[in-house]
Every structure is written in structure tokens, then in C-alpha cells.
């Protein structure tokens, strides 16, 4: 009989792991709480660094995992530990016996309305990175007019690197996302004046620095080093943004038609609950804690439970996919060692 492997989360990590496990001859079962596959990437439009359409990436992954058992709109209700396996009860009434579980539960976007000083949900022209991706996809958002903004800004580190927001971590992908989105807006609205308000620019990945240089040189995006202190509205209903230009040591003020908040990546609270059912520990950054952050990032401290993707911290798409493949291989090795153990036990009797 083919070995069952329960994958929690049908984002790109879960899909890629499932497709690799199918190739290795196992029976992956994906449990996805939303009504569709692809996770966050299914909400995005074009992906850095090569502006690949996100839809292409997701549909390729969905096709690769199509032979897997997939439950949409389903969650884990409870988990019973059996002698050498788990009995997992799903919210749709199905119960699954499995020795192996893979957490591919991803992340949550920081709720930008918690940073009240930025006015998300208060002023009409404030949106998030995720709202802007959705607008790229659908073209519908009352915050963006047809003629576009004449001046707009991006606020970096919203809910990241911020102890007041109880998240001191860097979300890693939002600097490059801001630069990508600034370029996309400039392509759509060439006359718009576009500002990025940053504390540090963290362009760590392949070709990210090229993106930044191009944003400066070819698109004239204006980078202001200083954290936005407050946003208000003037009588014309435009946004007034204040910050310090820390390079010149002077306060700056600018009037904008649109402000995009780069909401950070935080651990999903429901994931924490599911992890709690299995007594899996959280790391000091709030994400699931790996057995070892250098050598064993895809293994949990518990036998038979594995991790892939953004559930252990902010990651890019290629990093997530690489981890999903690596987790599939770890699972394969684990299953082989289980059956070797079984064989040597039965020989010994």
C-alpha cells in the first residue's frame, strides 16, 4: 500500500512537495482551508526578479499535484496520537491515518490597520502591498483613479522591524516588492512622482540590486531614508505624509494621492494552534521552530513531522520551492528508514 502523507496547506510549498512525493510513489493528501490552491502567490500578479506571471507558476504547480488527494475548504479539527502514527480528523468528517505530516501552512500578512498612524482603513487612499497586487490582477480598486496618482508613496517595514507591532523581524521580501511595485506603477503612470520611504533597503536576492538601480536610474523613483511618522488628510482629501529625511537631517513633508503600506510577513495564528495540538514549539521570531536552523530547517523536533516554506519564516518563491523539494526528499528518506527498522525488527524475532 502507498504511504499516506498529510500536507497541511495547499500553497506553493504544499503543491510542490505533493508533486515530488507523487513522483516518489507516495500518496500525498493536501488539506487546504481556503477554497483554492496556490496560497498567497495566487493573489500576486507578476513575480520578481523576472516579472514571471504568478498565474503561470501556480497553474504549473497545480497541474503537477493533480494526482494528489486534495480537500479544499477543509481544516484540521483534532489530532490523536496513535502508537506509531497519527489519526487526523478533518473538518469535513474524513479521518486520516498517517505516519507523516508536512506543515506547508505559510504566513499571514500583518494587519496594517493595527498601525493606526498610517491610516489604513481610515483614509481612502491608503492600501497595502497585497491590495495593490490584487489591483494589478483585477483592475478594480476605488482607491486608484483611472488617470492614476500624480504623486504616491510606498512605506517600507509596516509591522516588521517594529517592537511596537510586536514583530522585530525583517519580512525580507517587502523591500524588493516595493521596488517592483514602484516600477510597475511608474510604467502604468509615467508622470507620477513616486517615493519610497525606507529605513534600510534589503536587496539580498539574485538580481534584486539591479532592480533597485533601475528604479533609481531608469524610473526616477525617489528613495527617502526615513520612517514615515504619521499620515493625515488635508481639506482636499489628499494625504499628507511626514518623515525625517535622515540623510540631510531635515523633516520632510509631502502631499500624496496614494500610499501603499508594505505589510510584513507574520506567523499565521491558526498554524500556531494546529502546531499546538502536536506540542510543536515556536521559535523566538514567532514562526515554527525547526530541528536546526542551519542543517535541518525542514524537520520539526518531532519524528515524522516536517516543514516547508514560509511557515518557518519569510521566504521568496524559489526558496520556498527548493525547501518543498528538500522536505519531500527528507520524507522519502524517513520512510525508508522506518521500513528498514521494521525489517530489522521482524528479522530479530
Amino acid at each position, binding site marked *: 500500500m502507498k504511504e499516506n502523507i498529510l500536507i497541511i496547506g495547499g500553497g506553493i510549498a504544499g503543491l510542490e512537495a505533493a508533486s515530488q512525493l507523487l513522483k516518489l510513489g507516495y500518496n500525498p493528501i493536501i488539506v487546504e482551508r481556503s477554497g483554492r490552491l496556490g496560497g498567497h502567490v495566487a493573489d500576486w500578479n507578476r513575480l520578481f526578479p523576472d516579472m514571471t506571471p504568478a498565474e503561470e507558476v501556480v497553474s504549473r504547480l497545480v497541474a503537477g499535484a493533480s494526482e494528489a488527494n486534495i480537500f479544499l475548504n477543509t481544516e484540521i479539527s483534532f489530532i490523536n496520537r496513535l502508537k506509531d502514527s497519527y489519526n487526523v480528523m478533518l473538518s469535513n468528517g474524513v479521518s486520516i491515518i498517517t505516519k507523516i505530516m508536512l506543515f506547508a501552512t505559510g504566513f499571514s500578512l500583518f494587519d496594517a490597520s493595527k498601525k493606526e498612524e498610517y491610516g489604513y482603513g481610515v483614509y481612502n487612499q491608503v492600501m497595502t502591498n497585497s491590495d495593490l497586487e490584487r489591483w494589478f490582477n483585477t483592475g478594480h480598486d476605488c482607491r486608484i483613479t483611472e488617470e492614476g496618482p500624480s504623486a504616491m508613496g510606498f512605506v517600507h517595514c509596516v509591522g516588521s522591524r517594529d517592537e511596537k507591532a510586536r514583530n522585530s523581524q525583517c519580512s525580507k521580501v517587502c523591500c524588493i516588492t516595493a521596488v517592483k511595485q514602484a516600477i510597475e506603477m511608474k510604467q502604468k503612470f509615467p508622470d507620477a512622482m513616486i517615493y519610497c520611504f525606507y529605513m534600510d533597503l534589503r536587496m539580498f536576492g539574485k538580481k534584486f540590486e539591479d532592480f533597485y*538601480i533601475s528604479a533609481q536610474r531608469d524610473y526616477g523613483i525617489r528613495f527617502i531614508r526615513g520612517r514615515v511618522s504619521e499620515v493625515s488628510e488635508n481639506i482636499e482629501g489628499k494625504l499628507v505624509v511626514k518623515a525625517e529625511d535622515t540623510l540631510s537631517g531635515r523633516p520632510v513633508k*509631502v502631499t500624496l494621492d496614494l500610499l501603499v503600506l508594505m505589510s510584513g510577513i507574520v506567523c499565521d495564528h491558526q498554524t500556531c494552534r494546529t502546531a499546538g495540538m502536536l506540542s510543536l514549539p515556536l521559535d523566538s521570531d514567532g514562526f515554527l521552530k525547526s530541528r536546526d536552523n542551519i542543517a535541518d530547517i525542514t524537520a520539526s523536533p518531532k519524528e515524522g513531522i516536517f516543514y516547508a516554506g514560509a511557515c518557518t519564516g519569510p521566504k521568496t518563491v524559489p526558496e520556498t520551492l527548493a525547501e518543498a523539494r528538500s522536505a519531500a526528499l527528507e520524507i522519502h528518506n524517513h520512510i525508508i528508514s522506518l521500513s528498514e527498522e521494521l525489517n530489522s525488527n521482524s528479522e530479530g524475532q
Partner: protein
Amino acid sequence: MDFGFKISPSSAVNLDNVDLSLYDRLHEVEPDIAKCIACGSCSASCPAGRFSGMSMRKVILDLQRGRQKEAVKMLSGCMLCGKCLMVCPRGINTRHLILAICKLYGED
């Protein structure tokens, strides 16, 4: 009438009122000016800086923030030795840029 006191002008920069038309013309002939990351290598290696207060980093920032008077004044402390262009990590030909600034802003 002079009462012997005045309100000191606010040091705040209002980006709405900054006139960047000259900077935009400069950007057209020297697009690399926009690549500056304010690392300060140019200023740190400048032999004139110690004596004249010249800082290429500040000149670029002042131009980008519409403070061209200050920028042009500072440039008078440069002796065009070209040391700064050897160290710029963004490959900006700062010496060439300085000459372009003098030409463009001198005209004005």
C-alpha cells in the same frame, strides 16, 4: 523696520514645492546621478573636504532635494582631482558629474 529679531525659517523640506526642473535636466545628461546610495565614499576620500567642507554626497542630496544654491556653493570647494570617481561603488563618474553641474547650474 528692523526690530532686531526674526523668526528662524523652518528647516523642514516640503517636497510638494521643490522645483526639480533643473535637476531633471541634469538627470537627462547624467542619468547616473540617480544611482547614488549616499554611501559617503566620495566624501571620505576627498582631499578637499577637510579644508573646504566639500562633500559630493551632500551636493547630490541637496540637488535631489531642490537645495541647489547650497549645492553650487559647496562645489566651489572642489579641485576636480577626480579621486571620488575612483571609489564610487555605483560607478558614478562624479568628476564628469561635477563638470555637468557647473555647466548647467552656472548658466542659470
